[in-house]
Each structure stands twice: as C-alpha cells, then as structure tokens.
C-alpha cells in the first residue's frame, strides 16, 4: 500500500512539472515569434558600414514588420541574408529599388570608369557605407527582396552611441 501512496505523490509532482515545462515552452515560443516577426537585437561587426556602425561591434535593434508589407525604402539600413553564404546575415544600406538605374565605380581604389546597371524587378541594390571595405551588390549584384530579413531601428550598445541610425 505504501507504493500506491508514492505513486500518488509522484503523480502530483509530475503534473506540476508538466505545467512548469509547458509555461517555459509557451514563453520560448513567444520569444521566437517576437524575435522573428516583431523586433530583435543583433550584434553586428565589421568595417563595411563605417562610419555609421563601429568596427568592433554594435548591438542594434531591428524590426521585422516593414519588409513584410513592402515598406522598405531608399537609404534604410537592412539585415539581409547573404547571397553567397545563406548561413550568414549582413547589414547594408539600400541604395536602389527595383527599376532604379545606378552607376557605381567598379573599383573605388583605382577610380576608373563607372558601370551603369538597372535593378531588376523584385530586387534591391545594397551597399555598405564604407566603399573600400565592403562586399555588397557591387560584387554579387542586386539581391532579391525576399532575402531582406529586417530593418535596423536604433543602436543600443555601446551606450555612448545610443540612438537611431540614419
């Protein structure tokens, strides 16, 4: 009869454990939805967006709503899945929407003749602010709009650079 009592005790504990686990699971799902569809924080680093973003790394808040409604405009800083490596995300500025004609210098160091290109339908032209140290659409061409994953809102770290990104 003792083991029956133990079983009852365990049932109570198990039920409570299951409840706690389900609360944690729901919380994780909420975090996933917020991170993917509303707003998220990202650590960005690299020289390609100097002087807007620092070389050693910033934490920025990015929102994931605008691109779903097609509200990405010229001059926005966006998070884009890299067309050369799908596991990486890159941060660049949009300098051309579909149908725009752009001319850029093929090699900014040499400074010779510029190339003119029209952005095809459904694509955007992304470019880093630091033309000398950025692999962007000048290297891999215009990227499809669907690769855009978020728009940068403001920088939260380091604290002395806190503020919106322009």
């Amino acid at each position, binding site marked *: 009869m003792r083991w029956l009592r133990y079983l009852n005790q365990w049932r109570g504990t198990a039920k409570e454990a299951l409840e706690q686990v389900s609360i944690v*699971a*729901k919380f*994780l*799902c*909420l975090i*996933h*939805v917020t991170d*993917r*569809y509303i707003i998220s924080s990202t650590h960005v680093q690299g020289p390609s967006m100097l002087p807007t973003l620092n070389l050693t790394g910033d934490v920025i808040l990015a929102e994931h709503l605008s691109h779903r409604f*097609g509200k990405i405009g010229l001059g926005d800083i966006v998070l884009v*899945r*890299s*067309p*050369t*490596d*799908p*596991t990486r995300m890159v941060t660049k500025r949009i300098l051309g929407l579909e149908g725009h004609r752009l001319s850029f210098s093929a090699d900014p160091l040499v400074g010779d003749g510029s190339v003119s290109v029209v952005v*095809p*339908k*459904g*694509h955007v032209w992304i470019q880093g602010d630091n033309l000398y140290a950025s692999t962007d659409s000048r290297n*891999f061409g215009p*990227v*499809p*709009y*669907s*690769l855009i994953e978020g728009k940068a809102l403001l920088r939260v770290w380091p604290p002395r650079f806190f503020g919106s990104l322009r």
Partner: protein
Amino acid sequence: MGIQNLLWQVTKKAFTGGIIGVTISDRCCSVVPVRGDSMSPTLNPQRNSYLGKCLLEENAPKLILFDPYFLLIRLLILDADDYVLVEKFCLQDYKFVRGDVVVFSSPTHFKDKYIKRIVGLPGEWISSSRDVIRVPEGHCWVEGDNKASSLDSRTFGPIPLGLIRGRVTSVVWPPQRFLAFRPRFSSGVDLLKMGRLFVIDLQGETYSCKHCHTPFALTDDLISKSFHCKHGRAYLFENVVNVTVGEMEHRIMMTGWHTVADIFCVCCGSLVGWKYEIAYEKSQKYKEGKFIIESRFKVLGPDGGGYDMNEDEPMIGSDEE
C-alpha cells in the same frame, strides 16, 4: 461578467495556440497546398492528365461551364490539390542535395512561393538553352518536373539558397498519394539527364575520377608519366575534359616558377591536379596549356586500377606541387 471571462479565456487559448503553431511551422514542419502543375506528375498529377486539361476553363466549351454536374466534377478533380509536408530543419545549415524538392520565395515577386526541384548545387555546371552556366556560390538551380509549364531557373536564373523556405518530404493529402511521392527521383527520369549536368563522354581507353568515374582524358593524350606531385606520381596530358579550372597562382616547382591553376572534377568537385598557364623558364615552355593529373590517389587507369610507383623510370621533367 461570465461572458467577458469566457471571451478572455478563449482569446488567451487562441493566442497561445497561435503562437505555438507559428513556432512549430517556422522551426519544425508545416503543411502547404501545391498550386499549379509545374511539378506534374510528381505533385498534382491530375492537372496534367488529359481529363485535367479538358476540365480547364479555357479548354471547355462555353455552354458547359454553367452545368452543375460539370462544376462538381471539376471541383472533385481539379481542385483536389496535393497538400505536402514541408520540413524546416534543413534551414539550420542549408545543406541540400540534388533532387530535393524545396519551397522558396520568388526572386521576382516577394510575396509568392514556388515549389520546385533542386537540380544544381553551388559550383556545378548547368547547360541551359544556349550555353553552359556555372551555379555561383550560395546559389542553386531549380527546375520544375513539368518542363513545358514551369517558371523556374531557366527563366530567372540561379536563386540564392537564402530564399529557400523548406524542403518537401511527403504528400499528406489526398491519402491515397501518401506513399506515392519519392523525394529524390522524378518518376523514373534519370536524375543526371534531368539536371543536364554538362559531362563530356570519352570513347576509348580513358583515365577517370576515382570517386565518381567521370572520364578525364584519353590514353592517347598522355604525354609523360614522369611527373611528381606531393602524393606521388603525376601524369602530363595534352588535353583533359570534365574539369573546372580554379584560380591562377604562382608556384615554384622543381623546374622553376610557373603560373598554374588547380583543376577539379565537375561531378564530385575533388582536386585532381593542375593546369600550366605560364612557364617562366624557356625549357619549360612546352608545358603551357597542358594538364597534370595526380595519378596515385585521384585517377583510375583504363584497366580500372590505380597506379604503382614505377621505380626504374627516369625522373625527367619532374615537378613538385
């Protein structure tokens, strides 16, 4: 009071259920309907059948379009679209193989999603209507099984792997098609032919890749067997096929400075040797434009075997990698 409480409870439950559903559909798997017939007969086979074509609005005689029996039959046959299970675990590392059927966002209309088959992975060569195209890094070549009515890479070119939203694993509706979908093979069509991987066939005695048996060179094109590489013997050939040439670089060999480019098998991508682009010594100029294939580990001879080190052959013209 009671109604408000009930409403609140229902809203809470719906909200929680919705969030869990979205998370599962983003991370595990989801069920999507297949529209159109670009993947017939693998998916939606009825649309491409004779009956299906007759039932299409543009093919049916005008008078019959309002007949209720006709509409009923049309509903049962044409609108019985397949529903497929799309798994999202592949999006962790984006590793796909040729033959995977994937769901991806359209590169031209960002709100649309297409379902097609991957027939070219990064680095492979695809022969399209007029020329041979190399699939760039991070991209893939997709084609529908029903070539006649499929909008795919033949129109919009290779797509970045980042556009892929999931991989189709099986058909879940209608239930009789549950086991009919074989993910890797397209209804008996040879996969290599379907992907139109550009491989040249050689007639006669050939040296071929040890891993995938792609032919590289004829024995007639062999110039010299007395070359050396890091791993052993290397053979100099007049001409090789089915290789991709890598970047040019300067290398010092036993016979002096050369500009060479590594060559790789087009089918499996393994390194097979190098090509001499420029030789800087006058005595080595004869090598320019010719190819070295490393024999010991990389190549099968015409008799099917690998090579032994033949000790008593003189080591003239030997080059080290």
